[in-house]
């Protein structure tokens, strides 16, 4: 920017001055500015709101879709195709004897094992002493479980230790009970070292562990767990077939994200000769769920947001054009005091861009507000991705800039002669 032949500094409009002029131009007519911004406000607001609500909804789904569900695979024994067991007896369970070991070899499985509910006759008593008659009864479920199954259940131990594979292999009469059952039959954690027993219809099981809560299978019920081989010896094979309530099942705890892969492999791994006998249940793919929600409504609303932005752009273009025609006199005057055509264009462009930016800012605030209020009303957690929320006002700027380009061009071409001749 050196001095030219005139010896004068060339005319110049600094960014700061252009912005100040633009702001002054906008605040002159606040009502008109607000109406002009409305389209941009709606467009940007819809954009931020839709993306925010979608993210919030998806976040809610993944919230409901807990980590536990995502790491659990269950396999049920549907029974052999042809019943080969002698009349009156149940066929052998579908899982092989080393089912736990096979499952643990599948990549992604952290613990797995076979369990089933032992069906007991009506009026079965659970008591800590044969001399006592008043005890917990119906509400306690007797479950047969392998050591792997106990591990996969994710029990929180209060006292003692979980069932071991040694106790299983040797068909020990041992049991684990939950704290509710323990309280009902009068076995406290402090008594555990003296090897108290639970009698089930007269059969004694030494309590080796008391647990307070479980992550899988026995999450909401009072249960007594005994080794599966002990259960087979005492009560025989469980009845296979889905829906029998006491069919043998396998529960597998997997690493996060591995459940799908584990579910695809486990039936063949466990029973290569007849994998279809085992019915595998795995959690639905959470990504599918999210993309379904994101895909349906969001696309529609984003189109609406785009239309709003387009209307906003037309609104700004129209108002700026009117302002240019209205302010020919001002344009002429500015030319007379040294402004070049580009300075005139810059001023109107700055005005329309400022209008768009302001509209974008207000729209973003409204969009964020909608998401937050909606989430609060639903007791959800509002999820707003900063990657598209923070730059959202810039959408307004771009709309303003584009919308102002034609009016600015018109303004820069306004002849100062015509502008100043009459008033």
């Amino acid at each position: 920017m050196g001095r030219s032949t005139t010896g004068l500094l060339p005319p110049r409009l600094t960014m700061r001055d252009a912005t100040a002029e633009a702001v002054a131009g906008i605040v002159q007519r606040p009502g008109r500015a607000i109406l002009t911004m409305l389209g941009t406000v709606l467009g940007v607001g819809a954009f931020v709101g839709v993306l925010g609500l979608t993210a919030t909804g998806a976040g809610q789904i993944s919230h409901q879709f807990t980590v536990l569900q995502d790491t659990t695979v269950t396999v049920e024994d549907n029974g052999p195709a042809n019943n080969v067991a002698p009349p009156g007896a149940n066929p052998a369970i579908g899982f092989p004897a080393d089912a736990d070991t096979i499952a643990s070899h599948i990549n992604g499985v952290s613990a797995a094992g076979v369990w089933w509910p032992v069906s007991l006759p009506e009026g079965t008593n659970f008591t800590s002493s044969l001399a006592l008659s008043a005890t917990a009864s119906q509400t306690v479920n007797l479950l047969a479980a392998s050591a792997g199954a106990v591990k996969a259940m994710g029990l929180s131990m209060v006292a003692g230790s979980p069932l071991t594979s040694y106790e299983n292999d040797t068909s020990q009469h041992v049991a684990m009970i939950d704290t509710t059952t323990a309280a009902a039959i009068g076995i406290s954690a402090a008594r555990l070292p003296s090897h108290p027993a639970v009698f089930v219809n007269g059969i004694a099981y030494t309590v080796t562990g008391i647990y307070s809560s479980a992550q899988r299978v026995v999450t909401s019920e009072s249960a007594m767990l005994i080794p599966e081989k002990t259960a087979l010896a005492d009560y025989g094979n469980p009845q296979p077939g889905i829906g029998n309530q006491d069919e043998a099942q396998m529960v597998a705890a997997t690493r996060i994200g591995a459940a799908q892969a584990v579910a695809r492999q486990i039936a063949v791994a466990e029973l290569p000769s007849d994998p279809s006998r085992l019915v595998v249940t795995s959690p639905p793919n959470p990504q599918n769920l999210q993309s379904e929600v994101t895909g349906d409504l969001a696309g529609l609303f984003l189109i609406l947001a785009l239309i709003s932005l387009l209307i906003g752009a037309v609104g700004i273009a129209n108002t700026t054009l009117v302002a240019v025609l209205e302010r020919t006199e001002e344009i002429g005057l500015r030319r007379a005091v040294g402004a070049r055509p580009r300075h005139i264009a810059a001023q109107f462009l700055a005005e329309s861009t400022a209008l768009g930016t302001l509209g974008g800012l207000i729209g973003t605030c409204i969009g964020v507000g909608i998401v937050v209020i909606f989430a609060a009303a639903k007791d959800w957690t509002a999820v707003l991705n900063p990657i598209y929320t923070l730059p959202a006002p810039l959408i307004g700027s771009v709309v303003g800039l584009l919308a102002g380009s034609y009016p600015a061009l018109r303004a820069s071409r306004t002849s100062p002669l015509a502008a100043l001749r009459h008033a």
Partner: protein
Amino acid sequence: MAAPVIELRGLARTYPGPPPVPALRPADLVIEAGGYVAVTGPSGSGKSTLLHLLGLLDSPTAGSYLLDGLDTSTLNDRDRSALRGRRIGFVFQAFHLLPYRTALENVQLAELYNQTPRGNRIQAAVDALEAVGLGHRMEALPTTLSGGECQRVAIARALVNRPSLLLCDEPTGNLDSQNAAALMELLDELNATGFTIVVITHDQAVASHARRAIAISDGVLSERIEVDHG
């Protein structure tokens, strides 16, 4: 004799037709620094054309125009705009004040484009307003000012850059006779402090304030009588 501020050599402006209109026929004119010249003529005579050429708002079709010794006909738009912003102060019949800006802000507008540092702008504008006797109305909006006051703000705006040339286009056209007389006194005072003034008018009373009168008729300039100042 003082150095010429304005020197026209065969300056002409023909508006392209069809048919072409020779609004200003080739004219020669020299105005010295400190001069006070009135250009008079009926409407359509070419007054406005001359004003726009002198104000560098328009370019001649022939001849050359030297402002402060600079041949403006060879300058590009950037330099012409710079000259306009620094060396020429305009006073219009219609004032052309921005209605939503205070008197002070209106005066500062003339400093916006010529690289006057922000810090100096306000003081220069205050000085200019005080020079035209409006030091007490600096924060007033044009809508609350009388016609005479508005024209004084416009003059302050024209003065603020201390231009070589003050170009006045029918400066009293929108004023009553009392305000018009006061305004002409102000112009007289400004001329006395050294400003070169060219007033374009069809009002003989206004023209009589100038020390030199030039008539224009059908695009032809002609020197009239040399009038005594005052």
